[in-house]
C-alpha cells in the first residue's frame, strides 16, 4: 500500500532535513536530548545518531550533495549543470534558492510539488504539476543518486548509511509510482516513454583517455559523468597507503596527479579495479532502476576498458 502524497512529502522532507548539519539549528542544546535532526532520524528508524564532525567529513569534504558535481562534464560544483537546475526552479515560477542543486533543496522541492499536485483540483494543472514532479525526479534526482547514495552508504556507516539506504528506497518507490504507472495515468511520463536518458547522461560513454593529456585525463577520471565512478579524497589516501606512495594533500586532482607521477602503472591498475567495482555496483542495481543505471554502468565499463589498455601499455613500457 502506498502512503498518501502528503505523508510521502513529509517523509521526503525529513530525509531532506537529515542531510543538513545536525545541531546547527539549536546550538547549546546538544545536552538536552537529541537534536531536532536526531529526533527526525529516530522517527524514521535511522540507526545511530547524527554528529557534526561526520556530517562535515561526509557532506562538506568528501561527498557534497550537489547534483552539479555528479552531472557536469567538468565534475565541478556550480556551472552549467547547476544553472540547468536553477532554470528548472525558474520554469516552475519558484524563487531560485542559493543552492538550487543541493540534495536537500531538491527533495524539499519534490515534496512541495507532491503536495501541490495533491491539493490541485483542476485536472490540467494537476497533470502539469505531476509532469513537473516526474521531470524533477528523473532529471535531477534519479540521474545521480544511484551513483551517489551507495557511495555514501559505503563510506559513512551508522546514521548516514541508514539515511542513504532509506533515501534510495524512497526515491525508488517514487520512481515506481511515476514511471510504472499504468497507461493513461497523468503521472506516466513522456520523457521516459521514448527511453531518453536524463540530459546529463545522454550520449554514448566518453571515457577518460590518456591522449587528452595529463591534467585533462586526471580531471576526467575524477568526473563521474565521464568515468562512471566516484573517487573521494579518502579513496586516494587509501591508494597511497596501499602502494606505499607519498601523499600530497590537496584537492583530489592535485593528489591524483602526484600519485600518477610517482607510480603510474600501479595507480592506473588501481583505478581500473575501482572502475570494475563500480561496474559491478551499477549492474547490481539494474533490476531496480533499469537503463538509468545502465548508463552509469556503461560509463564505468568504458573507463575500465580504456584503463585496461593503458595499464598494459604502462606495464610493458616498464618491463621494457
Amino acid at each position, binding site marked *: 500500500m502506498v502512503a498518501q502524497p502528503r505523508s510521502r512529502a513529509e517523509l521526503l522532507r525529513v530525509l*531532506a*532535513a537529515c542531510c543538513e548539519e545536525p545541531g546547527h539549528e539549536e*546550538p*547549546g*542544546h546538544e545536552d538536552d536530548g537529541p537534536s531536532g535532526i536526531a529526533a527526525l532520524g529516530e522517527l524514521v528508524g535511522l540507526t545511530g545518531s547524527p554528529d557534526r564532525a561526520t556530517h562535515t567529513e561526509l557532506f562538506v569534504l568528501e561527498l557534497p550533495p550537489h547534483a552539479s558535481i555528479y552531472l557536469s562534464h567538468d565534475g565541478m560544483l556550480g556551472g552549467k549543470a547547476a544553472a540547468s537546475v536553477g532554470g528548472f526552479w525558474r520554469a516552475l515560477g519558484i524563487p531560485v534558492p542559493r543552492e538550487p542543486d543541493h540534495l536537500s533543496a531538491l527533495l*524539499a522541492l519534490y515534496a512541495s510539488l507532491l503536495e501541490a499536485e495533491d491539493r490541485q483540483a483542476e485536472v490540467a494543472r494537476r497533470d502539469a504539476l505531476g509532469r513537473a514532479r516526474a521531470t524533477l525526479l528523473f532529471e535531477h534526482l534519479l540521474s545521480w543518486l544511484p551513483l551517489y547514495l551507495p557511495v555514501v552508504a559505503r563510506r559513512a556507516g551508522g546514521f548516514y548509511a541508514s539515511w542513504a539506504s532509506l533515501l534510495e528506497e524512497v526515491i525508488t518507490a517514487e520512481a515506481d509510482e511515476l514511471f*510504472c504507472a499504468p497507461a493513461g495515468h497523468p503521472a506516466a511520463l513522456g520523457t*521516459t516513454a521514448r527511453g531518453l536518458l536524463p540530459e546529463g547522461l545522454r550520449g554514448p560513454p566518453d571515457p577518460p583517455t590518456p591522449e587528452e593529456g595529463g591534467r585533462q585525463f586526471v580531471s576526467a577520471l575524477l568526473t563521474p559523468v565521464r568515468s562512471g565512478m566516484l573517487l573521494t579524497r579518502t579513496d586516494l589516501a587509501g591508494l597511497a597507503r596501499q602502494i606505499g606512495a607519498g601523499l600530497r594533500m590537496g584537492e583530489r586532482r592535485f593528489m591524483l596527479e602526484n600519485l600518477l607521477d610517482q607510480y603510474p602503472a600501479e595507480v592506473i591498475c588501481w583505478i581500473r579495479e575501482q572502475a570494475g567495482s563500480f561496474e559491478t555496483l551499477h549492474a547490481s542495481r539494474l533490476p531496480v532502476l533499469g537503463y538509468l543505471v545502465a548508463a552509469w554502468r*556503461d560509463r564505468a565499463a568504458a573507463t575500465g576498458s580504456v584503463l585496461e589498455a593503458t595499464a598494459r601499455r604502462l606495464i610493458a613500457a616498464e618491463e621494457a
Partner: protein
Amino acid sequence: MTSPYPTTGDAEGRTADARDLGGDAEGRTADARDLATLARRVSAAREEAEARGETFYPGASRIHLASFPPKERWDDWIELDSRAWPERRENRSMLVPTTCFNCESACGLLAYVDLDSLEVRKLEGNPEHPGSRGRNCAKGPATLNQVTDPDRILYPLKRAGRRGEGKWVRVSWDEALDDIAGRIRKALDENRHNEIVCHLGRPGEDGYTERVLASWGVDGHNSHTNVCSSGGRAGWQYWTGIDRPSADFANAKVIYLISSHLETGHYFNPHAQRITEARARGAKLVVLDTRLSNTATHADYWLSPRPGSEGAINLAIANHLIQTRRYDAAFVRRWWNWEEYMAAVHPGRERTFEAFEEVLSGLYREHTFEQAAAESGVDAAVIAEVAEVVAGAGERLATHIWRSAAAGNLGGWQVSRTVLLLNALLGAVATRGGTFPNAWNKFVPRPIHMPPHPEVWNDLNWPGEYPLSMNEMSFLLPHLLADGRGRLDTYFTRVYNPVWTNPDGFSWIEMLMDEQKVGCHVALTPTWSETAFFADYVLPMGHSPERHDLTSYEQYDGQWIAFRQPVRRTAMERLGHQVTDTRETNPGEVWEENEWWIELSWRIDPDGTRSIRRWHESVENPGTKLTVGEYYRYIFDNSVPGLPERAAAEGMEPVEFMRRYGAFEISNEVGRRHEEQVHPSELHEVSIGEFGRVFTRAPAAPSPNIVPTGEPEPDGEGRRSVGVMVDGQVLRGFPTPSGKLEFYSSTLAAWGWEELAVPGYSRSHVHPSELDPDEMVLISTFRLPTQIHTRSANSKWLDELAHTNPVWIHPEDAEQRGIGPKDLVRVTTAIGYFVARVWITEGIRPGVVACSHHMGRWKIHDHGQRQMMRPVALDTEEGSWHMRPAGEVSGYQSEDADTSRIWWSDVGVHQNLTFPVHPDPVSGMHCWHQAVRVSPAQPGDRHGEVWVDTKKSRELYRSWLEMTRPAWQVSPDGTRRPRWLMRPLKPTREAYRLPAPSEDGSE
C-alpha cells in the same frame, strides 16, 4: 560491450503503456508498505508537534526557505558568542517580537533580550510577521544603534535660557506633565481649543493620537503628510474614496512603478521582496524615474522623463489602450461613473455606454506617443513598446506611485490619477496581480474608547484656501501665523522635525523663536533634532523596542496586524517581574507615548469634570486609569476576528499570543470587495440615486475594522449609502459619492476645478516653458536606501553606509558650466542658495540635478548627535539667514568603542532650507521640485553653507496662494470642505459650515 538494458535510442517502438525504467517493477513495490507506514508516522508526528505550537522541521534553510530559531525555543534561545571563539561561550536570550519604526513598513523584528543582563543584544527578522516574513533591510537591525546611542536623550529637559539658546535643565516627568497639562486645561477652559496643536511625523499607531486629541475636543491634529504623500493620495482618493494603492506585486505580470520602490519608500521591504518574486516568475518591471535609482537598474524598461511629464506618458499609454480597444470594456461599463460624466459634461448626448466610448476615444486622442515624447524627452518608440507591455498585462497590472512625481510637481496628484487610469482601463483593480485600494488590505481594530470628533475647526491646519487638500496644510504653519490667523498656546512636535524636514526651515525657526506665536513648544522625540533645539520641553520617547503600537499596512492582498512592544518590559513580565509603566524598563527615563498621553489627559482633567478623563479610564476597573495592558487586551479580545480562536488553539490568551509572536494574519486573498453583494438585511426602505447609488435606512453594523476611507454623504432624507446598483444587483462598490470608480470627479467639478475633473495632464511648475534658459530642475525628494530622516543621525551602521548627499549632474551640464569632478557648486533657488559637492554622472538626464534630502544635519550647540550633525554658526539679520559650517564630525570617545572609528567628515548639505513653500492649490501637497541655477562655487564658499532670505519666501507663499480657489468663493453648499473626503479628525457638521467672510479673516 553490449548492455542487456536499453540505453539512449534503444527504446524505439516501446508502447506508451510501458513507461518503466526497464527494471523489475513487480519486485520493487515489495517495500512500499513499510515506507507507507513510515510516512504516516512522520505525518502524525508533525501534526502533533504543530498542535503544540512547536516547529517540526529543524531550521535548515533549504527545507522551508529560511532559517529562524524554532518558536518553541524563543523563551530560552542559546547561541554561541562569536567574539569568544574558539571558546564555546553560550549566550542565552529571550526572543521577543516587536516591529521596526525606522520607516512606515512596520516590518517584524525579533529582539534578542539577554537573559542575564536583560539588555537587547541584537534585532533580527520575525518569521511570524506576514508582511516582512522574517526579512529586514539594514534599518531594522540598526535599531540597536538607536537603543544604545551614547548621545540619546534619556531624561525630560526644560529650557533654561532663551528659546534656542541651548541651555537645559533636567526636570521630573511630574513637573513637565503638570505644567503642560495646566496650560492645556487653561486653554480649553478659556475656549482656546484651536491653540492646541500636535504635529506628527511618522504615525505610530493608526488613529491613536487623533483619538487623544478628539478626547480633548480639539481639532489639533497636524500631520507631515502634505510634505510627503498627499499628492499620491489625492489622485487615489478622487478615484476610489480610498487614499492609497495596495499593489499585489507578487502575482503581477507587469509592474509599473513611478517610484524607487525596490530600495526605499513605503512599504519598501515587504513590497520589494514580492516584486523580486514576481520578476523571478517572469514579470516585467517598468520604472519611470528621472534618476537612475537602484530600482531603475533592475527594470526591464527604465524611462527617464523630464520631471513633471510622467502624466503625459501615462496618458499616452491610456490612449493606446483606448485606440486599440485593449481596455476591459465590461469592467469600464460596470465600474466607472461614466453615466454621471455623460450627464454632467455631455448632457446633449445619449446616455449609453457606446456614446461614452465614443467620447472616451476622442478625449485622449491628442495624447499620442509623439506628444508624450515631446513633453518627456523619452523616445516615442520606447513609450510605444512600454504601452504594449502594459496592454499585455490585462488584469495583472500592478502599479505604484507614492511620492516621487506626485510629490514633486504642481498638479502632481494628476500623475497618481493617471496611473490609476491604466488599472481602471484594464480592469486591474482588486484583481490577482492588480492594484487594490489599501483599505481592503488593512485592518485597524476598533479600540476600547472612541471619543467623538471635535466641535471646532482649526483654520491653521485646514485653511479655507484649500478645501480639497488631502491633509492638513502643515508646512504653511509659519506663514499662517505670520498672516495673523491665530496663535498657538501649546504646540507639540511628536517624532517630527519640521525645521529640517519641511521646506523653508528658517521660517520655522522664526516662528518657533517667537513666543507670541508659539506659547510653549513641546518636542516629543527619541533623539535630538534641529526642531528640538527650539523647544521649551524635550521629552524622551522610546524607539521601536521601547513602546507600544498596533500597526497594519497594505503589503499584499491580505490583512494583518503587528504589535510593537517594549521588549524588555515584556521579557521581564514573562520572567515574573511586576512592571507598572514602561519607564521602568526603558533606558534612563525614556517613556512610551501611549502611557504618556493617558497620563497627560488625566492631568488635564484631574476630576473628570471636563469629560476628557473618561476616554482614558479603565473599563475593567471603572474610575481608574486605563493601562496599556488593558488597552491592547481589549482590542485583541474583541476586535480582531480569528485571533482569540488562534490563540486558544495554542492554549494562550489573545494578548499573550500577540506578545509572543508579534503578528497575526486576519485574512488572505481579500479579492474584489466592490463586487460583494449587499446582504438583503442591509436594504431597508432603500432609495436609489440617479446614477445607481443605493441608500438605506438600515443602520450599519459596527465593524471591528475602522480603517479610514471616504464617507459618502447620506441622501436628502438621511439614508446612509450602502452600495451601488450594477446590472440589477446591489453591490458594495467604492466609498465615493457615486459608489463607483470616479473617472469624473463631481467633487472637483463642484468645488471649482471643473477643468480637472477627469484624469488629465497639466504642466508642472518646473515645465521647460516655466524655466529661464539657465535654469535647471532640482529633484530633492529621493531617499538614500539605508537612511531614516531624523532618527538615523546616530545609527552608526547606517551612517557608515551613507553619510553625504552630493548633487547629481550630467556630464554635459557639468562641462557647460565648467564644473569638474567633486567640485563645489552653488545651487541657487528662488529664496537662497546652498553649497554642495557634485557627482558627475550619466545617471541623471541633462537639464536636471538631484540631491537626496536625507543629509545635512546640523547643530548650533554642543548637544545633539555627534556622528552626523555638523556644528554650524547661524547668523540672521532682518530675514536674511546665513548658516556656515563651524566644525566637522569626527571620532569621539564614548561607551561605544565604534564612535572613535568615525572616518567620515562630510555629512552633506541641508538643502530644504532654501526651498520656498509650493502648496498645490488642489491637493495641498508641497511641490518639492525646484527651479535652480547651478554654478561653480564662489571664492569663500564652504561645503554645507546655506543662505536664505525669508522675506522672499513670504512673497513666494503669497504668489502660490493666489492660485487657490478658496472655499468661500467656490463652496457649493456653504461648507468648508466636501464632507465625504477623508480627514483624520472630522469635526461636527456645524463646524464644517463656513463662517461669515469677515470672521474668516481671509477677505
